[in-house]
């Protein structure tokens, strides 16, 4: 089991060093997908590897010449990486055009990188008939542009096969999370994060095999945490939570039992249907994602309701909001979420995450104080 965790750790701790070698080993074209919500199955069905672009480890330097310092860390880091040639292994860029910084990165990269740039626009108003009509056409347009880039026709049969692999991956990750709720502390949250993030970088069929083995082993183990301070992690849109903060939360005696973060539940919640037209099945998933998102206008769902239910279903006592600095969609909803949680008697704490390393001492005290309040 440790060897699998080590492998995931190796992949994720410095993804941009690992990816070029992996690409060479597999002989695949890589589509660098900006977060969030790219229908990766379509790229996979064309025989290419969709990779979710995340922050790099290094400080932002050259990037300052192309993007202002008040854009979120992931936006600035990806621009910086591209200018330094660290994304040269990427064969095509995919932008889901979900919000300003993501549109911003796509525009800067379009001007400064000489690779094909694909867009897949996803309606933000999910319940309107016009949005459904539009997305059906948009998914087909995206499919054609992927075919053009790869020279590979995406047949319904190939797409159905890819959907099966992706659904399996989502099911396995959900199983891992089910285990985590029941056997708190089975893996540290840093380990869980690396399991999910590795899947965003490698072939899903390979990730599935590793996950299957890992889950079998984990099932035989007992919970390692007896902590009563069960926490749900919320937010962290587009970019992963800072590992140091996850460590501090657990060091303070709390245990994270569930989340709605992008490098977590938000990524693997909800499957693509396997009956009928696979393109329409993808449309349906895109428009009915189970985790409400502040970049979308979700008439049917409510993030407050979702979060309260997550807390109840996981037996948690509190919520930690991981807010990416300059992530306006999240910042805007934050007071609403706090109000909703407070009205349900659920305490919460806001932690800001930045690309730049910040002092952890004061954050540590705040986390400790918050955990104390859960007693």
């Amino acid at each position, binding site marked *: 089991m440790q060897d699998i965790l080590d492998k995931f750790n190796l992949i994720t701790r410095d993804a941009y060093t690992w990816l070029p070698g992996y690409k060479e080993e597999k002989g695949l074209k890589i589509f660098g997908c900006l977060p969030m919500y790219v229908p990766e199955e379509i790229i996979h069905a064309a025989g290419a590897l969709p990779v979710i672009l995340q922050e790099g480890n290094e400080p932002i330097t050259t990037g300052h010449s192309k993007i202002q310092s008040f854009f979120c860390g992931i936006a600035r880091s990806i621009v910086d990486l591209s200018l330094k040639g660290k994304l040269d292994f990427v064969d095509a860029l995919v932008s889901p055009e979900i919000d300003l910084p993501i549109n911003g990165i796509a*525009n800067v990269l379009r001007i400064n990188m000489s690779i094909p740039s694909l867009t897949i626009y996803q309606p933000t108003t999910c319940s309107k008939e*016009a949005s459904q*009509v539009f997305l059906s056409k948009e998914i087909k347009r995206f499919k054609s542009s992927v075919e053009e880039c790869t020279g590979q026709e995406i047949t319904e049969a190939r797409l159905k096969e890819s959907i099966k692999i992706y659904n399996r991956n989502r099911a396995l990750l959900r199983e891992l999370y089910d285990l985590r709720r029941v056997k708190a502390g089975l893996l540290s949250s840093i380990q869980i994060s690396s399991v999910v993030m590795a899947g965003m970088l490698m072939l899903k069929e390979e990730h599935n095999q590793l996950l299957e083995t890992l889950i079998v082993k984990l099932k035989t183990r007992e919970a390692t945490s007896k902590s009563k301070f069960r926490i749900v992690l919320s937010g962290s849109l587009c970019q992963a939570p800072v590992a140091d903060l996850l460590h501090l939360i657990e060091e303070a005696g709390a245990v994270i039992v569930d989340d709605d973060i992008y490098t977590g539940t938000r990524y693997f919640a909800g499957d693509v249907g396997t009956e009928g037209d696979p393109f329409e099945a993808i449309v349906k998933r895109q428009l009915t994602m189970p985790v409400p998102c502040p970049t979308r206008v979700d008439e049917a769902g409510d993030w407050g309701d979702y979060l309260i239910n997550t807390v109840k279903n996981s037996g948690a006592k509190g919520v930690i909001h991981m807010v990416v600095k300059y992530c306006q969609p999240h910042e*805007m909803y*934050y007071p609403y979420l706090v109000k909703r949680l407070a009205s349900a008697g659920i305490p919460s704490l806001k932690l800001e995450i930045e690309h730049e390393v910040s002092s952890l001492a004061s954050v540590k005290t705040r986390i400790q104080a918050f955990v104390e309040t859960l007693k």
Partner: protein
Amino acid sequence: MTAGSYVNRINTTREVKPVIAGWYEELRTAHADGKFLAWSYGPVPFEIFRAMDIRFEHLESYGAYLAARAGQEKLKQLSESDGYSNDICSYARLVRGVAMLNERGDKSSVPGVLLVESPDFVVAFRQCPLMATVYDYQKRLFNVPGFCIDTIPAHSEAEFQENLLYIRRQLEELIVFLEDLTKTKFDLDRLKQIMAYVKEAAIVRNRVLDLCKSSPAPMSVFDHFISLGPAHSQRGKKESVEYWKRLETEVKQRVDNGIGAIKNEKFRLYWHNLPIWFKVGRLSEVLARHGAVLVAASYTHELFYSHEPEKIDPEDPLTSIAAEEAWQSWLAADSLRTTEQVQKEIEDYSIDGMIMCSHRTCQPADICEYDIIDIIGRRLGIPGIVIDADPTDPAFYSDAQTETRLQAFIETLEAHKKRAAAS
């Protein structure tokens, strides 16, 4: 021109202040007058509201109005006390403050500001993705119905056309939503009349913009900023056509008599991004003192039906509204398309330099400002500068820093001119 001033302000714009005051007074009394009141976000189709006799607050216009008033700090403090970070869109923080005063029934603690009542429903147009976010959480906080018009960040003519169709379909859905809500039958003939005025006003307005290609420029972008008041509040009304005609007469007289918007015009500049609403007057003086006049701007010259208004078809108003909104979305989303537009303005208006305003909490037009300067510099040899600001929040603006940078920029322009003259 007032004593000591380098700015020769347009007289017609003095009409704007009472028009705006009247507009907000109508919003303040909407419910007492038995009217529906909407809060709106982004470039929503005002024309449809007007056709249905719905009064509407508009986030960006109201934010600009509030920003120029002393009470704005109090409004922002209120929203921050409610948990809003000051990294958030400053327009959104201002109106959140207004909403909180309404929730508290407090009409007196922010004197000098006309407080708009809370809405019966909310409507957004998602050209700026954050507009949809502001709309959605405010809808939940107010617990009122809402409608958000989605738009595609187009990157090509084909996507623009697709977007036009997408928006048009949604406008039809919006009308059904409004009919259900207000129990009022939508009157297409009234909308056609409104669009006829929109078209006429936009054509006259474009003539005014064209007159500013003259040297010296008879009217500056600062005057255009002030004139956006009627472009918003009187759009689709006969009064707006009359305003632009009076403005045209004055501007034409200036051209005929060689009167410029500033004393001694030496440099003609382009302004990229929204205005700094709380510094319009001061910056116009600062630039004028250096002999610099803003003659074109992205906000005034590329929006408000300035793109091909002669193609507006009052007999098919929804398509014309959708075309304008799709055009705005294309410019907002596609930096290469924006660059082409900037280049066109620079060539049309004989521009010497670009001021790119980098707005801290209002980011749509911040994107690729450095690349636009690089590209235009390479193509045309025109220099540009980035200044740090915010449309409505003085916390992100420094007079001293900005004015020093502008002075240095003017010196660069002088050096450019000398080199050009020598070669």
